[in-house]
């Protein structure tokens, strides 16, 4: 019996581990390392209505236990994604979560409508939180009313469940979560990156051409855990958690906080095998900790509950 299978709106997952959007392209590169069917799901790179080049380089900088990125949503546009990337991915037995981005409400609605029809797209991830895009992007993720409206509009056109990706760059994350719940979201993914910056010692100027970038990696994990802990108690939507995950232990910590599945981003760059390694390590870790199924871990940090199996034994 599997300890790892999970069901979420639109998603029947073999296991709750998936690569995070923007950190896995459309899967081709990582398919050289392992069979993508091993993954719980794949969150593909953001799709916009039109092709986008993104920001000038340098686009990444390193920080202590983290990195900054300012890719700027480079992508070939939804048409090409639907015609080329998704069909290629359909050779694998793995559900796709399509990350949807845009600069205007109309953009989001257009992309959501088109991409949600693709046969292997089982859910959308509404990216209202990309900190690297000038035009509007971030406002969707920081003003509750705007986020709610956008969610509602996208829900109206989407053929599949809609997960909304929250930005951590807000005073009150719970308010944002409640807003997207009220807008009809089927789930929440969190967190996107924290806005950060690094300066070059020699020139004094930002290392990133875009000046600021999104902070990801182990450095942000405590912020992600705190926010998931807060949000999971305030809304009744399932949460796909992310932010600095690099081991099976981290996955359990995200579940304890309140996640029902997780995504791994930056760690893919460090270790291309990180997702299958974590998937492989989880059953033994669950065994050690005394859980029969990973779902028993969700929300243990705040739920009143019985002791795990091994305490009972």
């Amino acid at each position: 019996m599997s300890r790892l299978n999970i069901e979420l709106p639109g998603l029947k997952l073999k296991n709750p581990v998936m690569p995070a959007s923007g950190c896995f392209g459309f899967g081709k590169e990582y398919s050289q390392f392992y069979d993508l069917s091993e993954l719980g799901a794949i969150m593909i790179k953001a799709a916009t209505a039109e092709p986008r080049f993104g920001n000038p380089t340098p686009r990444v900088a390193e920080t202590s236990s983290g990195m900054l990125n300012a890719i700027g949503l480079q992508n070939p546009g939804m048409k090409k994604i639907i015609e080329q990337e998704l069909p290629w991915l359909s050779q694998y037995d793995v559900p796709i979560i399509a990350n949807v981005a845009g600069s205007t409400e109309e953009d989001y609605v257009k992309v959501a409508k088109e991409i949600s029809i693709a046969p292997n797209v089982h859910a959308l991830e509404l990216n209202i939180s990309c900190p690297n895009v000038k035009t509007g992007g971030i406002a969707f993720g920081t003003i509750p009313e705007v986020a709610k409206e956008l969610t509602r509009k996208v829900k109206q056109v989407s053929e599949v469940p809609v997960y909304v990706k929250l930005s951590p760059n807000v005073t009150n994350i719970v308010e944002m979560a409640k807003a997207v719940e009220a807008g009809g979201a089927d789930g929440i993914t969190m967190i996107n990156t924290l806005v950060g910056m690094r300066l070059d010692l020699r020139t004094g100027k930002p290392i990133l051409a875009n000046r600021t970038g999104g902070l990801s990696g182990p450095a942000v994990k405590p912020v992600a855990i705190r926010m998931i802990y807060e949000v999971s108690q305030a809304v009744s939507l399932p949460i796909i958690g992310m932010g600095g995950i690099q081991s099976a232990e981290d996955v359990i910590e995200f579940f304890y906080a309140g996640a029902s599945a997780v995504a791994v981003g930056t760690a893919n760059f460090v270790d291309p095998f990180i997702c299958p390694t974590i998937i492989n390590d989880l059953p033994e870790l669950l065994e050690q900790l005394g859980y029969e199924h990973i779902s028993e871990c969700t929300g243990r940090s705040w739920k009143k509950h019985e002791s795990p199996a091994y305490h009972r034994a």
Partner: protein
Amino acid sequence: MMKKEICKILSRTEIAADIYELIVQAELVREITAPGQFVHIRVSNHWDPLLRRPISISSYNPISKQMTLIYRKDGKGTQMLSEMRAGMELDILGPLGNGFPVDEVSAGETAVLVGGGIGVPPLYELSKQLTAKGVKVIHVLGFQTVAAVFYEQQFEKYGKTFIATVDGTYGTKGFVTDVLKNIQFDCLYACGPVPMLRALQQGYPDQKVFLSLEERMGCGIGACFACVCKEKDDPSGTSYKKVCTDGPVFRAGEVLI
């Protein structure tokens, strides 16, 4: 096929001021297809420093499965790399990217290899391979100062070698471009800082020129879009090349630098 492999360090030597030569034994050496490819190195088992460091393959031998990497100790990652010792293990991803096209010159023709600073290392294997097929090779290598000069003798074995130093403490005072003025060639291969590459691209618009670019990288394998550059003459403005997988070597004029 690229591999992720825990490799064994055979030796590590400081060959110039803050310049280290690392000889590594690895199965992945057999996968190397051209000089100018690179590897992506995890400098610690921990998650800080987080990112891998891209380093060119300076030379390799598929039979002994050994490769040589040459790097400058600079920031946190290369600092840690410089503390490694023979016998230690190193997590390497590679070989990555497309190297220098050796076929672009024929036996009897002349190739000039232009390197600047830590752009010099990948030219060494290139020189070996060109010489082996009968190409006449000339090296023009630029460094900041005499203390930074390395591999002069090694290059000399394969062809005439000119050194330029910015401060004039060794060889010609000035830049590689100053030396190049007096050299005729059929094909030029270069690796080094962007201003140097740009000067070469502009200086020889009608000749065969191949440039190895550098860009900050995330994944090193084409997934993260950190390392893109624009294609030249692209009306849509959205076409691009990735330095990690389409490069690092490009034909001059192929991409904007």
